[in-house]
């Protein structure tokens, strides 16, 4: 064990675990890859916090990209929106820190008080990757955030944080409280009802009234607190002319409560209090099952969660942080390396290397020249640039998409099976109740009211109401194991209905990880090694991709290294002069360049050829397409030029299936057009430019290769690694709908058995008390077992 540890520390940076360079930095017999990592170690060990490295090997994050700019946090207006609480002495803020990943992170972040005693307490929520910090006001918010950044835990502060609400959590707590009350009353009433069911002897009969009144007391909080939502929902729906399952449920609860009051007060029976409490308890559990939440995922993101809170504006040569809403047309902004361009603007100074991967999914950066328009959403990779804002943030090419009405309409989820079935169920139920009451009025009027109420009690569709949530919750957890995360349970039923599938191209069906190079020309293994060692020093995406693809260890140190950002690199490696880069950088005659994705190589003034960057489709694409084709029509929407049309035509035979050069708005409109032809549309996308289409489609799925990364607002998030399982997911969704149908049938059988007692006026509290839990347990068992059996059939378990 100890030996393994040693070898690890010999080749990897002690702080972050990256491979060490030729001459690693050393301190206290530990080796570091860069000054940043060394700095963090120094800071921690000087505050007696070196235990950080004991809990886990290499717990840190690489510190190679430094330079933080948090000046905007000193603007009281911005800071005021971010903090949770502030008074004269202390401030509390909750920050989202995406790099939290191990127990060392928790330990360090909760020991912040040792570094700066003005930090009074800090508390980590590991699953949400949040830290809540309380600090004295002698410290500014900027100081706290800078301290976090300096120890390698840079918080992600975005506009969506500013507007984030904690509403869902409170609703969740309320439901849990209602379940607790219902469960408490259920247990007690069951206990108090047993003597009645087993029969009381003459001596014990004196307790009957006592037990009855106690039961009644327990039923009051269940009806008026725990079950309140069913009444308000049924009433609300009735007023809008909708008959959903809440109506017979509310009716059942009400009738049970009334009849229990009547029976107990007149001392004619024991009432149905325990059935009533059990019913509400199980119903609420079903409701709770539906609220499956993923703490680490957000389905509601838009551009605001990705854009910074503020941007640096140059005013009379002075830098001033300005929040994005206050950015006006004509402002001159300064964008530093690795910052996002927040609004459409014109490049005035510097060389722009813009990475639009968040917008388009395209991993290679785009070069912009002076005077060119740069659209919002790109990340500047080169040095600092200055731009003039053309349009305010909300009116930019990309962000104006969110002004579309699609984003203000809530998607309609009434179309679920249980929604439709319950309408007929309610009508039939009322009919049966009315008919049996009429029958008894005719023959034996004393039995009319008992029969009428008994029908409404026994047919109360508890099992029916539970079959959907339990089946869908089981499917959700099966999908979850396969790295397919759904926003809520109704998405499953939506997925089962899909008959048109639309794919985005870059990042969705192409695999950014599997992208590769092909070399045109002749190059030896030694020469590859030289290129590898040179390219290692560059942060340019193409160089990084190349190093990853070459997959060679670092061997030689580079002398006289020079990089012209975005154009090429040169240096002396092992005595050879090596140059790689674009044609113009190497002084080659202009040839047919393919969008800047070629890397030309010159070694010792000899041109060897070029590495050509190739998109690779996800390996499972062919299988997915051929399987989906059987049940749905497929389309491809891409914002790119047409150069991939040829290679994609093996997947999408018909030219009408592929649409290139689509703007975000056109993508949205295309989905709309499909829906007008009556298609239920599923959209796969990954970038911000798909956000409109994802929102408009009946079901929008964001494909991402790193779940913790940004993904646009959608109904489901799919890990790229599970792309090949899409047909299986759809089949599982269809099977889930089948399971719901079957469990409906089972619960109907229970209802019919109960009804046969009820219409004869024979329903005793004992029958109800047995039937209700029995049917509930049957449904819960059946749905979870059946869903898992189908999952095994679909090879998802």
């Amino acid at each position, binding site marked *: 064990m100890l030996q393994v540890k040693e070898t690890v520390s010999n080749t990897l940076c002690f702080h972050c675990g990256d491979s060490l360079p030729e001459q690693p930095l050393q301190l206290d017999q530990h080796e570091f890859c860069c000054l940043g990592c060394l700095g963090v170690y120094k800071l921690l060990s000087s505050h007696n916090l070196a*235990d950080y490295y004991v809990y886990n090997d290499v717990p840190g994050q690489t510190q190679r990209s430094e330079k933080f700019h948090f000046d905007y946090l000193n603007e009281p207006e911005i800071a005021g929106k971010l903090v949770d609480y502030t008074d004269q002495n202390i401030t509390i803020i909750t920050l989202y820190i995406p790099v939290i990943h191990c127990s060392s992170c928790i330990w360090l972040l*909760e020991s912040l008080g040792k570094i700066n005693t003005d930090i009074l307490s800090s508390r980590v*929520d*590991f699953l949400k990757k949040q830290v809540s910090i309380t600090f004295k006001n002698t410290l500014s918010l900027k100081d706290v955030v800078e301290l976090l950044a300096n120890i390698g835990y840079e918080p992600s502060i975005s506009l969506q944080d500013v507007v984030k609400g904690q509403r869902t959590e409170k609703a969740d707590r309320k439901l*849990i*409280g209602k379940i607790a*009350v219902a469960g*408490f009353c259920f247990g*007690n009433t069951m206990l108090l009802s047993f003597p009645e069911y087993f029969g009381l002897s003459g001596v014990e009969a004196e*307790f009957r009234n006592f037990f009855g009144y106690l039961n009644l007391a327990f039923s009051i909080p269940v009806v008026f607190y725990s079950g309140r939502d069913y009444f308000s929902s049924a009433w609300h729906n009735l007023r809008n002319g909708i008959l959903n399952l809440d109506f017979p449920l509310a009716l059942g609860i009400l009738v049970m409560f009334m009849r229990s009051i009547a029976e107990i007060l007149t001392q004619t029976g024991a009432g149905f209090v325990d059935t009533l409490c059990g019913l509400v308890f199980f119903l609420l559990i079903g409701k709770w099952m539906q609220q499956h939440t993923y703490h680490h995922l957000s389905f509601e993101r838009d551009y605001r969660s990705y854009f910074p809170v503020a941007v640096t504006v140059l005013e009379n040569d002075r830098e001033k942080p300005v929040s994005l809403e206050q950015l006006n047309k004509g402002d001159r902004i300064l964008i530093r390396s690795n910052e996002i361009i927040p609004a459409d603007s014109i490049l005035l100074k510097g060389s722009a290397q813009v990475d639009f991967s968040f917008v388009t999914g395209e991993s290679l950066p785009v070069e912009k020249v002076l005077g060119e328009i740069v659209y919002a959403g790109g990340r500047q990779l080169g040095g600092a640039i200055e731009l003039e804002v053309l349009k305010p943030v909300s009116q930019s090419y990309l962000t104006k998409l969110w002004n579309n009405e699609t984003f203000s309409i809530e998607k309609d989820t009434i179309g679920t099976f249980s929604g439709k079935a319950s309408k007929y169920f309610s009508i039939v139920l009322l009919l049966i109740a009315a008919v049996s009451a009429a029958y008894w009025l005719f023959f034996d009027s004393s039995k009319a009211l008992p029969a009428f109420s008994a029908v409404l009690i026994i047919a109360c569709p508890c099992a029916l109401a539970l079959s959907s949530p339990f089946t869908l919750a089981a499917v959700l957890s099966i999908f979850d194991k396969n790295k397919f995360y759904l926003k809520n349970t109704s998405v499953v039923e939506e997925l089962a209905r899909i008959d048109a599938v639309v794919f985005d191209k870059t990042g969705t069906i192409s695999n950014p990880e599997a992208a590769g190079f092909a070399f045109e020309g002749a190059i030896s293994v030694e020469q590859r090694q030289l290129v590898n060692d040179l390219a290692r020093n560059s942060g340019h995406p193409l160089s990084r991709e190349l190093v990853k693809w070459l997959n060679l260890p670092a061997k030689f140190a580079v002398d006289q290294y020079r990089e012209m950002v975005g154009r090429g690199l040169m240096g002396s490696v092992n005595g050879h002069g090596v140059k790689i880069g674009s044609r113009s950088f190497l002084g080659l005659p202009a040839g047919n360049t393919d969008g800047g994705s070629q890397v030309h190589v010159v070694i010792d003034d000899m041109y060897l050829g070029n590495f050509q960057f190739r998109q690779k489709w996800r390996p499972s694409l062919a299988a997915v397409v051929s399987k989906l084709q059987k049940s749905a029509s497929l389309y491809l929407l891409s914002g790119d030029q047409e150069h991939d049309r040829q290679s994609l035509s093996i997947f999408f035979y018909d030219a009408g299936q592929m649409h290139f050069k689509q703007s975000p708005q056109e993508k949205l409109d295309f989905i709309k057009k499909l829906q007008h032809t009556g298609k239920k549309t599923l959209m796969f996308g990954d970038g911000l430019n798909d956000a409109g289409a994802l929102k408009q489609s009946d079901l929008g799925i964001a494909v991402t290769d790193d779940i913790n990364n940004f993904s646009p607002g959608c109904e489901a998030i799919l890990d790229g690694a599970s792309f090949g399982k899409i047909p299986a997911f759809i089949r599982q969704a269809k099977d889930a709908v089948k399971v719901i149908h079957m469990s409906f049938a089972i619960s109907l059988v229970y209802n019919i058995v109960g009804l046969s007692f009820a219409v004869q006026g024979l329903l005793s509290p004992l029958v109800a008390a047995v039937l209700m839990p029995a049917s509930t347990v049957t449904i819960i068992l059946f749905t979870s077992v059946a869903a898992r059996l189908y999952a095994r059939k679909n090879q998802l378990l």
Partner: protein
Amino acid sequence: MNMIFLLIGISILLALIFLVAFFWASKSGQHDDTYTPSIRILFDDEIKNTDEN
């Protein structure tokens, strides 16, 4: 048999105390984060000797 009135009263009172305790726990946020405390409890106050196994 009158004892039963008292016993049932006590048992319900006890159950009520648990219910109130649950609400108090829920309100003070004890159910919001059910994972981090399981790690936090494993931290030592101060680890002195790092090489000891």
